[in-house]
C-alpha cells in the first residue's frame, strides 16, 4: 500500500499562547512547537499498516513555513519513508490548504490518505474531508477504530450517544481520532536514519482565500469565584448558592 500522511506543526498543547502585535497572529518567540497530536495517530496508523503488509511506501506532507521541516523530520524519525514540505505562510483558510494538498496528492497514486481529525491550533476539522471532496474519493472522519481488508475500510467513529460503523473502499481519506493507536516515539536509530531520508521542498499551490482573520483576542477572564467552605459541611451552602444565586439547579 502507498500511504500519505498530512502533518501540521502546532504549538505544544501545554504552552501559553500570546497574541502578537498585529492582533491577527500569535507570538512564535519562545513557543515550543510539536507535531499535531491527532496527526501522530495518523503517522502511527501508516507505519503499522506498512509493517503489517510488509511493503509499500509511506510519505508525509506538510503545508507550512520552512520551520515545518523539523516537524517532518520527527515523522521520518518515527519511520516514515520520505517527506514533502509544501511551503506557504501560515493560514487559517482550510479550503486553500486542502486545494494545495489535493493538487499534490492527486498525482501520487495513494491508496490511503491519513490526516488528524483536526489541528489543535485552529480546530477546523476541515482539511481532510475537503481534500477528499476535491479528489472525489471517500472520506471517513474522526476514526477511533479501523480495519482494512481487500481494498475496503471499516471504521468506527464516535457520535453523540453512540458509535457509527462506516465503510468505504480505497483509495480513501481517513481522519484519525484519539484512541486509534498509541503513537511510537522516535528511536535513536530512527533519528539518525531520518537525517538521510529525502525531504523535498516546493511552493504550495494554495487556493484563493475565502476566509480572513479579523482579529485574535483573549477570552474574557472569569470573575474570581469564592470558596464556599471546607469539607462536607459546606455542601448545603453550595447547593443553596447554586439554586438561589446561580439559578442552575
Amino acid at each position, binding site marked *: 500500500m502507498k500511504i500519505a500522511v498530512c502533518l501540521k506543526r502546532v504549538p505544544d498543547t*501545554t504552552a501559553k499562547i500570546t497574541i502578537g502585535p498585529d492582533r491577527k497572529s500569535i507570538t512564535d518567540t519562545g513557543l515550543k512547537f510539536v507535531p499535531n497530536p491527532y496527526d501522530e495517530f495518523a503517522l502511527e496508523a501508516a507505519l503499522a499498516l506498512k509493517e503489517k503488509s510488509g511493503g509499500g511506501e509511506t510519505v508525509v506532507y506538510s503545508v507550512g513555513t520552512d520551520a515545518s521541516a523539523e516537524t517532518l523530520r520527527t515523522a521520518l524519525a518515527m519511520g516514515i519513508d520520505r517527506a514533502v514540505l509544501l511551503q506557504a505562510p501560515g493560514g487559517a483558510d482550510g479550503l486553500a490548504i486542502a486545494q494545495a494538498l489535493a493538487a499534490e496528492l492527486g498525482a501520487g497514486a495513494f491508496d490511503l490518505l491519513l490526516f488528524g481529525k483536526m489541528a489543535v491550533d485552529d480546530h477546523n*476539522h476541515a482539511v481532510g474531508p475537503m481534500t477528499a471532496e476535491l479528489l472525489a474519493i471517500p472520506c471517513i472522519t*474522526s476514526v477511533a477504530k479501523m480495519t482494512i481488508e481487500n481494498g475496503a475500510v471499516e471504521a468506527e467513529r464516535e457520535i453523540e450517544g453512540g458509535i457509527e460503523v*462506516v*465503510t468505504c473502499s480505497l483509495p480513501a481519506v481517513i481522519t484519525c481520532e484519539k484512541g486509534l493507536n498509541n503513537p511510537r516515539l522516535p528511536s535513536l536509530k530512527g533519528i539518525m536514519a531520518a537525517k538521510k531520508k529525502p525531504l523535498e521542498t516546493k511552493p504550495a499551490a494554495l487556493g484563493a482565500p475565502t476566509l480572513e482573520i479579523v482579529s485574535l483576542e483573549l477570552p474574557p477572564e*472569569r470573575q474570581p*469565584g469564592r470558596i464556599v467552605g471546607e*469539607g462536607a459541611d459546606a455542601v448545603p451552602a453550595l447547593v443553596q448558592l447554586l439554586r438561589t444565586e*446561580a439559578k442552575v439547579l
Partner: protein
Amino acid sequence: MADRVLAIMEQRDGALRKVSYEVIAAARLLGDVDALVLCEGAVEGTGDLRAVGAARVLSAAHPDFRLYNPDGFAATIGELASGYSAVVFAGTATGRDLAPRVAARLKVSCATDVIELGRDGAAVTATRPVYAGKVLQKIRLTGTPAVASIRPNTFPADKPAEPGPPGEVESVTVPAFATRVTVKEIKAAATATLDVTEAPIVVSGGRGLKEPANFKLLEDLAAALGTAAVGASRAVVDAGWRDHGAQVGQTGKTVSPGLYFAIGISGAIQHLAGMRTAKVIVAINRDKDAPIFKVADYGIVGDLFEILPRLTDEIKRVRAGQ
C-alpha cells in the same frame, strides 16, 4: 441577494435533535431561515419549526437517508445552497463531518464550531475558539455562501412548549449522487448516552478520584442532577480509567454546559481550555491552592470522598422538593 439562510437540521431515529433548534436560533442572526431536514420519512417536530423561527421548512426525503449519508447529504445541500447567503450546521459529529464536504463543493472555506455569528456588510462574521479556547478568533467569510457550524449549547434556542398545528413542509428534490461512504449502523456507546458537549450539566473527575471504580460517585451525582454527563481529565483518560470520548480539554472535547463540576481535577491549562466557557463552574479539591479554584465560581476545599455522597444526597433532596 436577499439574506436567506439555510439551516441544516439534525435528526436521529425520526426525531429532531435539540441542537437543531440552536441552529435555527443562530441562523436567524444572519437572515430569513429555511430549515432543511434530511430524512427517510416523517420526522417528529418538523411541523413546529416555523413556530421557532423558520420561514420555510424543507424536507429532503430519500430511502438511503435513515442514517447519516455523507455523499447524499452533501449533494443535496450543495445543490440547494446556491440560493442562500449562508448555510449553518450544528457543530456535532455529523455537522463537523458534513460542513467541510459541502463547503469544498461550493469552493468556500468553513467556520467550524462558532460561538458568535453576525454580519459586516454583506460578509458573514464569526467568532470561534482556537488553541482549545485559549484564544478567540474573529473571522470574515468572504466566499458565498458562507458555511459555518455552531458549537452546541451556545446559541439559546426557542423550543415550542407544546406542539403547534402541523405547519407546511415543502419537499425538495434529492439530486442523483454516488454513495462512496456508507454508515452501516449506530452501535450504542460503551458508556453513557449523553455526550459531554451536549449535556446541560457536566460532572468531571480527575486523578483525585484515586481509582477508576470511584467514578461511580460521579455517576451517582450525575444521576441525581438529572440530565448530566460524566467527563474526565486527560490524566485519567490516558491512564485508561475512562473512555476518550469523555475527555474534556485540549486533546479532548471543549464544553459549554450551564453547570460544570470539576472534581479532583487540579486545573492544568489544557483542561481549563476545554471548560472555561461553562456558565457556572464548581470545583471540589483537597488542595486549596489548586489552579481550578481560580476559574471556579464556587469551590469546596476538602476530601471528595466525604463531600460527594453528601452533595448527591442534598441534590436529590432539593430536586425531590421542587
